[in-house]
């Protein structure tokens, strides 16, 4: 296979880590500055999608298997839910983070951090998965089958 | 006991007029008793009414029904096959 679009590939290789880093920034500074799990997840996914666009579906599959994406989707939701439930078991109500640490404020820090992380993971994984699903779609029902 | 009963009935069956005459005699006796009691003032019913009425109406009933039969009777399989009666189903 001869390498083509050398410029694009070079730029993508340079950009991708930066985008990932930015995604993490948006993720972890969300409680003080604009951002949050959702936005971070999208940004994160953008880098993976960029990778797939430039290097092709095969490379993307090698990078992260669909199986792992699915797991990540579920794991993110679970992280969110379990953090909420943890507040519940420790004496508060669902999504009440105050009991998570010594002081209420510290608890809320931990809680929001974990919850946003869960959101971020799920969103990133889902968006990549949707992209994959479309890009790898095979036509298995013909027009006339309807 | 049953056998004697059956024999007696068989005798009566062969002599229907005898049965009829016995019945008529019983009826006559009843009419007489009815009239006597009425004369004696035991009750105030109209005497012999029941007997005459019963006789006349029964004859009328049977003759009326006989006439009616001309209008309403149809062959037995009139409603077939959507009807059943008191007979074992016959094989076609």
């Amino acid at each position: 296979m001869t390498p083509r679009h050398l410029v694009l590939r070079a730029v993508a290789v340079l950009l991708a880590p930066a985008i990932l880093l930015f995604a993490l920034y948006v993720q972890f500074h969300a409680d003080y500055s604009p951002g949050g799990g959702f936005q971070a997840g999208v940004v994160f996914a953008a880098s993976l999608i960029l990778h797939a666009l430039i290097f092709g579906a095969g490379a993307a599959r090698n990078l992260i298997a669909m199986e792992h994406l699915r797991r990540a989707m579920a794991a993110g939701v679970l992280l969110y839910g379990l953090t909420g439930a943890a507040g519940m078991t420790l004496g508060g109500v669902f999504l009440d983070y105050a009991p998570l640490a010594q002081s209420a404020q510290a608890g809320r820090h931990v809680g929001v951090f974990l919850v946003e992380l869960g959101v971020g993971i799920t969103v990133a994984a889902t968006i990549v998965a949707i992209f994959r699903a479309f890009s790898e779609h095979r036509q298995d029902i013909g027009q006339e089958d309807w | 006991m049953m056998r004697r009963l059956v024999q007696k009935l068989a005798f009566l069956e062969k002599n229907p007029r005898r049965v009829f005459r016995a019945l008529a005699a019983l009826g006559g006796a009843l009419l007489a008793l009815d009239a006597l009691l009425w004369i004696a003032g035991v009750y105030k019913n109209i005497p012999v009414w029941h007997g005459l009425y019963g006789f006349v109406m029964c004859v009328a009933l049977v003759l009326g029904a006989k006439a009616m039969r001309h209008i309403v009777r149809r062959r037995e399989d009139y409603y077939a096959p959507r009807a059943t009666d008191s007979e074992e189903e016959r094989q076609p």
Partner: protein
Amino acid sequence: MSETLALHAPALVILLPLLTAPLCFLFSRAANGVWATALLVSLLSFLCAAFLLEKTFDGRVLSYHFGGFPPPLGIEYRIDMMSALMLLIVAGASLLGLLFARRSVARELPAARQSAFYVCYLLCASGLLGVAATNDAFNMFVFLEISSLAAYALIALGGDRDRRALSAAYNYLIMGTIGATFFVIGVFFLYAATGTLNMTDLADRLHALPVGSRSLYAAEAFIIVGLALKIALFPLHVWLPNAYAFAPSAATVFLSAAAAKVAIYALVRFLFSVFGLDFAIGGETLNAVILPTAMIGMIIGSFSAIFARHAKRIFAYSSIAQLGYMMLGIGLESREGLEASFVYLFNHALAKSAIFMALGCIAYQQASMKLSDLHGIARDMPWTMAAFTIAALSLIGAPLTGGFIGKWLLMDAALAQGFWLIALVIAAVSLMAVLYVWRVIEAAYLKAPTGRRRGAPRAEAPRREAPFSMLLPLWIAALLSVYFGVDTRLPVGAAEIIADSLEAAGQ
């Protein structure tokens, strides 16, 4: 312990299935394991719902504040009698459906998709439970979407057996999305006008607003139409028959028992609790719209059922007719009407799930659900068809079954307002139900079984009775539908409380 449970039950009833779903997705490969987990969780959820029902039976209202933020700031779950009854119906249907599902799913779905089925099932259940529990309009939308998306997937899973399931799911997806969009547009209008999403708070603020706010009228119109789509109210019912007919049997059981009912609940919640009957589309207008559409839906649904040839589709159309009954009670806008609707809803959930379970048992034994292929099936599957007959009697409204009390109350409610015509339509549609049920009974009991079918998809073993694990939930549902026809304390008692509170709110 009881106090802790009372505190958390409103959240637990939904969170249990909601969190178990991704858990199952993450960790389990074996379908049986996922099934067992789902069953356990459904049971716990059902117990929570029963507990909540018991707690609210004296008219008490339980409130749960998410994250400790009091309403209207935070999201509130508010369990009153109506919510509790819906929770019980959904959780109960989910439990019965899961009991039924194991063998049915193992037969109908390829091994690779069986775990996915249970995950979607749990998600759908948690979504429906969430709609019933939440008191936050936007949160309701979210749960509505969770349940709908899961339902689309559930229906599409039938595609391995019958490709038409895919198209049915697609249609449902389009229509469901339109419905949800309309709903959320309505909610946004409300939010724009009042600045709150908490429904209790919404009701208060709406009534404080000057009359004649146009955006509120639009909001109500959008919400009614959006939910009508989810309910499959005539003429927006077209997606339903195929969706129910081609979904996997276990999915049909659950969806038919719970999905449309929850949408009805949401509609009642908005019409009576949030807007109130003196609002724009209320009172006379609502009468004029809902009553005729409900009646036409009843008649058209019944006719379609009479002429349908596919056993599952017969009862899918019958569902449209039956939903018409429930809407009729709501359209009457009286205490009696609402009471009748909820009793009907409860009993219909039982009877319909039993019927679809019976059909599922048949589907377990033979691929074709065409009426002509069911000839003489009662000889091979006597227990299945006996339970089917019992449930069908309840659907018709025979005395001593749950359906009877529902129809009786509905007719009584119609007569109470002098709607003779409606009472007559109810009676006529019941007779039509006799007709379509009779077609199935006739095929199953009276027709001689046809010989080997030509071109049968696979060499079929002789038909046998369905396995015990499928008959058990079927008989539970069938017997319950008789039990609640005799001992009416639970459905009628609950419906009375609901009607009282709605009447109070609607004034």
